[in-house]
């Protein structure tokens, strides 16, 4: 004899635990003067090259560190450490994006959060102390991906989307969620602009059609153009 069938109302946000931790991380970092920037973009869009070129413009006055996220290897962290920057590498295994739980692990490896305990418990922090951390801006270099990374809150204060010139200026039309989530869009490899049919103004119109307050920064890590403006923007955001 079959049992009875009934409906159980659940109404649970599937990513609710991640969103809760992301908010907790953001609050904890803000209290201690640490600014977290999430850098997103396709594989090969120039995320690591951008960081290599940008960090010297931020330090001093800021003290940066980087959380690298890739499916495998520590190529990017090694590249940054070779230039003297502190970087930790997270291997995401099967994960196509970073979530708040992995961000927390990266912050722990940087010594900005205690290793095993909660977010703000007053314990000694290897990377300085809870009240005086040794880094004050941390970049997450997210997994190369224009889809999944935009879906999940990492706990960052600022989201940057990279769009390289060789990728084409139609990407805001194809991946609107990424460009809706991005506080600023960095058009990388701008030194290719004279060789590609890429219209920066059209990108600006397309992005601001999705998100009117977004800023657009054409930059080249190779020739250094545009980096000063981007660094100034970040310094202003850190001070807010």
């Amino acid at each position, binding site marked *: *004899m*079959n*049992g*009875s*069938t*009934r*409906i*159980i*109302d*659940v*109404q*649970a*946000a*599937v*990513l609710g*635990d991640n969103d809760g931790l992301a908010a907790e991380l953001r609050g904890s970092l803000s209290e201690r003067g640490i600014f977290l920037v999430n850098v997103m973009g396709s594989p090969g869009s120039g995320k690591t090259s951008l960081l290599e070129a940008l960090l010297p413009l931020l330090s001093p006055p800021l003290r940066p560190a980087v959380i690298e996220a890739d*499916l495998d290897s520590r190529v990017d962290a090694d590249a940054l450490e070779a230039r003297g920057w502190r970087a930790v590498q997270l291997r995401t*295994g*099967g*994960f*196509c*994006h970073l*979530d708040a*739980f*992995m961000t927390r692990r990266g912050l722990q490896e940087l010594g900005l959060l205690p290793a095993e305990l909660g977010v703000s418990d007053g314990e000694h922090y290897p990377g300085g102390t809870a009240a005086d951390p040794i880094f004050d801006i941390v970049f997450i270099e997210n997994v190369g*991906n224009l*889809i*999944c990374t*935009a*879906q*999940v809150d990492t706990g960052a204060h600022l989201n940057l989307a990279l769009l390289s010139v060789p990728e084409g200026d139609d990407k805001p039309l194809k991946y*609107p*969620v990424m*460009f*809706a989530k991005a506080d600023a869009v960095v058009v990388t490899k701008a030194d290719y602009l004279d060789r590609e049919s890429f219209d920066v103004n059209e990108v600006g119109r397309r992005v601001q*059609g*999705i*998100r*009117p*307050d*977004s800023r657009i920064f054409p930059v080249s890590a190779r020739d250094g153009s545009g980096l000063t403006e981007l660094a100034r923007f970040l310094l202003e955001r850190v001070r807010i």
Partner: protein
Amino acid sequence: MSIRYSALVRAVLPAYIRTVHELPIISRVLELALAAAPRDARISRVNLRVGSLCDAEPLWLERYFRIAARGTSAEDAELVVSRDGTVKPENAARTPDSAFGYVLESIEVRDPPERTTI
């Protein structure tokens, strides 16, 4: 990363299809559904609402659900995905966060048959 997800990707899925975000999402849906179901009940349906701007493909959600649910009280369950289609991508920045979210709305469960004593 949940234990269930890690075990699932290592044991079942080839590397070339691991890199999709539907998989960790469906893993969490299953965890929530199993937690909401009474002990000894079988889950026969899982109703998931997907925000209009979520880049999740129902076909993949359903496939992964069938794989993830094997060996659980939800292994015969049907995953029903409903998508709110009211928001256009060009309005993404002016939409509430719910347009980007996933909500496990309800589950249908079948209680075990009552035992009769003779």
